[in-house]
């Protein structure tokens, strides 16, 4: 009788589609995947230990480097944690600015993440470059307000570092004129493409129960059909003032995650519209002037605050001993938790599917390895 032999392949750490330095030790039988062992830590930068050495403010730029696509969201989550810990009030206007930045981050993250996923699928970067175009536009505006495109370091305790001005508002409105065209193009390009359907439907299915068991969050969880979004479940900032919906999938496959991300971009667009509308009425300045940024001391205690990052639930846990820096500092990184489901999601599919499933989880190694 014919017998097939298992083959062990290392996909990564240097591989075009592992999204950074990530290694998958794959055992295949023919093209079918029998076992997958994710190996990571190549990008470990001792982030959590650094956070215990640095003062609270000093740690802010380091959070930029976690999920370097969404430094604005990382800043927001970290600032929220320290604000909870130290009991700092955040003015309304600052909250609105933070929300605008978060939603812009969400759009740019999903645009590029979907582009990379389609690139893994073999669509020759067209979707990716269209996404990059929108991302560049958004990054230009981040640069305008924060001074840097990716490592924004924008939030401060009790607000943000610089107010947004009329130029920003007009440019944002211009940008939002173009965004729906981009969404339409993107959907038209690939949403119903027969090849994409063949590659994405019923691939990498993560059933609802298992998604909860793995405690995955973000679009991966919503793609599996669990309507869980921190912006709704525990409204932070001013998210309770906006009307938006949470898209959920039904099957939990790659296609569902893809659809959920596109729908989320459209919802973010709606939030942006409302935020721009409500922004002029917001009270307070862009920052709470009473807060001593550099010498902020938090009372002894602990705090955990989370935000809905584009990749999932991003939470920071900080224990304070009353001094100017954290006693214990822990990051709940969505990429890392979502990645833990990868091995089981890939089992039984082919090598070609593995890279697509990895792409659909949307990881950033900076956040996984920390």
């Amino acid at each position, binding site marked *: 009788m014919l017998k097939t032999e298992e083959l062990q392949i290392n996909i990564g750490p240097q591989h075009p589609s592992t999204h950074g330095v990530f290694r998958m030790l794959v055992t295949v039988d023919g093209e079918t995947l029998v076992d997958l062992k994710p190996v990571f830590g190549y990008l470990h930068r001792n982030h959590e230990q650094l956070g215990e050495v*640095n003062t609270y*403010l*000093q*740690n*802010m*730029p*380091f959070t930029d480097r976690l999920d370097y696509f969404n430094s604005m969201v990382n800043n927001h989550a970290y600032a929220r944690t320290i604000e909870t810990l130290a009991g700092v009030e955040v003015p309304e206007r600052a909250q609105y600015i933070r929300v605008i930045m978060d939603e812009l981050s969400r759009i740019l993250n999903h645009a590029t993440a979907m582009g990379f996923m389609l690139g893994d699928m073999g669509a020759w970067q*067209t979707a990716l470059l*269209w996404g990059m*175009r929108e991302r*560049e*536009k958004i990054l*230009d505006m981040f*640069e*305008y*307000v*924060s*001074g*840097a495109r990716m*490592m924004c*370091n924008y939030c401060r305790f009790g607000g943000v*570092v610089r107010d947004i001005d*009329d*130029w920003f508002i007009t440019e944002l409105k*211009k*940008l939002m*004129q*173009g965004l729906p*065209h*981009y969404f339409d*193009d993107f959907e*038209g*390009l690939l949403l*119903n*493409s*027969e090849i*994409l*359907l063949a590659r994405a*439907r019923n691939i990498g299915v993560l059933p*609802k*129960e298992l998604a*909860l068991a793995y405690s995955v969050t973000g679009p991966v969880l919503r793609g599996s*059909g*669990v*309507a*869980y*979004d921190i912006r*709704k*479940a525990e409204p932070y900032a001013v998210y309770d003032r906006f009307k*938006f*919906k*949470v*898209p*959920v*999938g*039904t*099957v939990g496959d790659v296609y*569902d995650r893809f*659809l959920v991300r596109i729908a989320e971009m459209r919802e973010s667009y709606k939030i942006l519209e409302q935020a721009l509308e409500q922004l002029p009425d917001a009270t307070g300045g862009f920052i709470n002037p009473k807060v001593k940024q*550099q010498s902020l001391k938090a009372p002894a205690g602990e705090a955990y605050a989370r935000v809905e990052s584009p990749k999932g639930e991003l939470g920071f846990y900080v224990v304070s001993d009353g001094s100017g820096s954290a006693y214990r500092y822990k990051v709940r990184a969505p990429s890392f938790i979502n990645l833990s489901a990868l091995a089981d999601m890939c089992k039984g599919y082919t090598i070609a599917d593995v890279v697509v499933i990895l792409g659909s989880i949307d990881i950033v190694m900076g956040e996984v390895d920390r």
Partner: protein
Amino acid sequence: MTLSHLATEDVFVVERNDADFRAGQGMTKGLGIVFRKFRKALFGKPNSDRADTEGQFNVQYPEERLAMPEAYRNMPILLYDDATGHELCTSCFQCERICPPQVIHITQAKDPATGKPVPAAAKFVLEYDTCMSCGYCAEVCPFDAIKMDHDFELSTANHPELDVDYNRLLRPVSYYETIAPTMWSDVKEQAMKKLQNNIKRRPGDIGRDHGQKIKGGAPVAAAATPAAGAAPAAAAKPRGPVAAIGKNMPEDKTAKLLAIRAANAAKRGGGAADAAPVAQAAPVVEAVADAPAAVSAAPTGPVAAIGQNMSEDKRAKLEAIRAAKRAERGE
């Protein structure tokens, strides 16, 4: 099973269209969109308006440059006053303390007579290679002495060069004014007032002995005391874009030679008469500080010339863009 306590109107299920009949219509639509893009990009004109989603969006980098927003932060620089040549830094160590990667190293200046500390820095070293451009130093500086530069073309083959010292960190206030006019005008008065207070407490040339050049072209220290004879040589060190470093060794050498000669002449007592050649030698690399003077005085060196033209161009362009932007904002 849903975990959420979300109201049902807050949730919607994405449409999968699984039951549709597929005959390649989705692919055809995609091809049509891509072809439309091709047509628009080929026949349309390049654009960079944020509302556009069609056309070409490239910026042809070395020739075309995007306007830098004022808030843009790359690497920290130190400012000095154009008129007096006094550095704004008072070595208060605020930046050294806040710097997250701890790359700022300051030594406070001391009065040679009394040995007491003086509000000025004797040494200021910044490790550009490890700097994470967070901008905290500029944020915390109470004297507005340290600011974030817009120059990002810093690549070099010589790594140790990236430990940048005082001479190469210094920029005149007028330079910062060109790159960030509104941000400077917000703090200008207060900064200048503080500077005046500090100047009073600085004996001799402390606070302006790092080779900075005041208006008129001559380095401050060269005309002052023979003891500061090394200053022109230091001034000859490029302090414009770091990229220029290492490319103009010959200029460096001639500058040094001229500086030594000038120092000798100063010793002989004819300092004022020989100030001109010194001025000639020094500004070779003074592209940023005082472009017109430098151009007129530049001995040679194609590299240096290119550098000067570039930065001059850049400045002009920058100013034009600024003006346009200001007009756009209705000022």
